[in-house]
């Protein structure tokens, strides 16, 4: 019983960063009805820029954090201009394919930047843990959860209390009506990309700081985890992304404990498969299922 609770707590903590990755996918999907496959690679390259400074100049960890966030946002804007802005509105497939190509491009850049297989990634957190009754809480995971909660709270305020947040929600509801109302969709989409890149960079940093290492494959990993968490929760749904991320974290933690490390990733795919068969819209995606299907037909 204690193991079960401990695993669930660990899963929720790690799942909070999956939730942030899923939010990155779901906001772009909600606004554009397109999937940005380069999202994970965007975060990876931003973090590589921070790692590069860390490796060559031994800069302070805060500089690494700042560089990671700023570079991820810049790479995110690059991806938006190249794969989304430049591609016609009704060509969702072209966006997806070009974002895949840019993903490969970003990986190549990272490999040229730092050619070895893995590099150590500096941790902001004093690696320590403390006991709460029979349970063990790791310092870096608590930081991860706090960061995720702060990001989700800030995002909620931004979407509901600001003019651009409302514009973003209006565009996801009806791009056509938003255009009639004088909302500049191109500008709002660029802002949305910068925003999700920021959220993704925070998630990426929290994960890498916990792992204390980085490889070019972090992009692939982040894209998989984010996409799976988004699909579990329901595409285009923000609460769904959070729920999907937490669920994925908890299931992975239990699989790892009870079945072994090699079953951790497998459990995620089994979970996704079961969800797609039983409830294809995701946990909270039922409401927009019709629109989703339309979007998939376009994709």
């Amino acid at each position, binding site marked *: 019983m204690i193991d079960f609770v401990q695993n669930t707590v660990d899963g929720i903590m790690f799942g909070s960063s999956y939730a942030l990755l899923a939010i990155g996918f779901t906001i772009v999907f909600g606004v554009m009805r397109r999937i940005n496959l380069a999202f994970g690679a965007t975060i990876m390259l931003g973090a590589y820029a921070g790692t590069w400074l860390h490796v060559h100049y031994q800069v302070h960890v805060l500089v690494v954090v700042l560089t990671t966030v700023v570079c991820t946002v810049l790479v995110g804007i690059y991806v938006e201009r190249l794969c989304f802005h430049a591609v016609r509105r009704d060509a969702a497939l072209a966006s997806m394919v070009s974002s895949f190509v840019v993903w490969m491009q970003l990986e190549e850049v990272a490999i040229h930047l730092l050619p070895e297989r893995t590099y150590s990634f500096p941790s902001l957190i004093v690696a320590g843990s403390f006991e709460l009754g029979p349970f063990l809480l790791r310092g870096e995971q608590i930081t991860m959860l706090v960061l995720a909660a702060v990001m989700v709270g800030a995002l909620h305020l931004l979407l509901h*209390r600001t003019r651009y947040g409302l514009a973003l929600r209006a565009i996801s509801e009806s791009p056509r009506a938003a255009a*009639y109302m004088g909302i500049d969709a191109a500008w709002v989409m660029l802002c949305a990309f910068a925003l999700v890149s920021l959220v993704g960079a925070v998630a990426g940093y929290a994960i890498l700081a916990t792992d204390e290492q980085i490889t070019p494959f972090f992009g692939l990993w982040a894209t998989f985890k984010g996409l799976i968490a988004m699909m579990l929760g329901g595409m285009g749904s923000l609460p769904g992304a959070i729920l999907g991320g937490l669920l994925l974290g908890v299931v992975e933690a239990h699989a790892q404990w009870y079945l072994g490390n090699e079953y951790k990733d497998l459990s995620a795919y089994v979970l996704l498969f079961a969800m797609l068969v039983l409830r294809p819209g995701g946990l909270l995606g039922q409401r927009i299922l019709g629109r989703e299907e339309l979007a998939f037909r376009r994709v």
Partner: protein
Amino acid sequence: MLEVRGLVVSYGGLRAVDGVSLEVRPGEIVSIIGMNGAGKTSILNAISGIVSPDTGEIRFEGASIGGLPPHAVVARGIVQVPEGRLIFGTLSVEENLSAAAHQHGGFVLRRRARPNLRGLFPALADKLDRPAASLSGGEAQMLALARGIEAEPRLLLLDEPSLGLSPKLSADVFALISRLRDQGLTVLLVEQNVRRTLALADRAYVLESGRITLQGPAAELMSDERLVSNYLGISSPASFVPA
């Protein structure tokens, strides 16, 4: 105020608007009437930048606005209320109105004081926090109109505002448009309800297959025989000429 010269709009080789010229002067209600598919909506969409015209000139208050993106046209003071309402169903009524005022707000959203709302749209004033999808058809049309006004236009483009409404509700819409003119708004109105439209408008253009075939003061058009036989049925023109 608005001048359109030789406007041509085509979709994949098919000419929807074929050399239309029209003019709207400040304070007028000008109407474009015509059958379905005559090209009325395409004219409005070309003015508001939703579609880009092939050729032709669109000038608003002396400056050319042809080919500008929609948000730039709205910034100049032209707002279109599209056919089919296109309200944001999952957003609240208040959020629909705020989204329409996108170009007039600060970074942080604030509930705007809307002194005219209760007077013009009594049905909406008490439902500001309801999701827009819960509104009835008539209320949704009122919300679409309220959104158009919320964007603070000087020229309002209305596309079939009475479409799908009961006679009573459609009378309300026409009364509202007349009140908006009294408040100094200029209106370009596209309608299929020819009788009511001509009773309300100052001038009108009749559009057939993308060309203007008839134009003039609305009162004169009402007694035009061609128009009467094509659009107003076979009843005697005398029965609806205003006294």
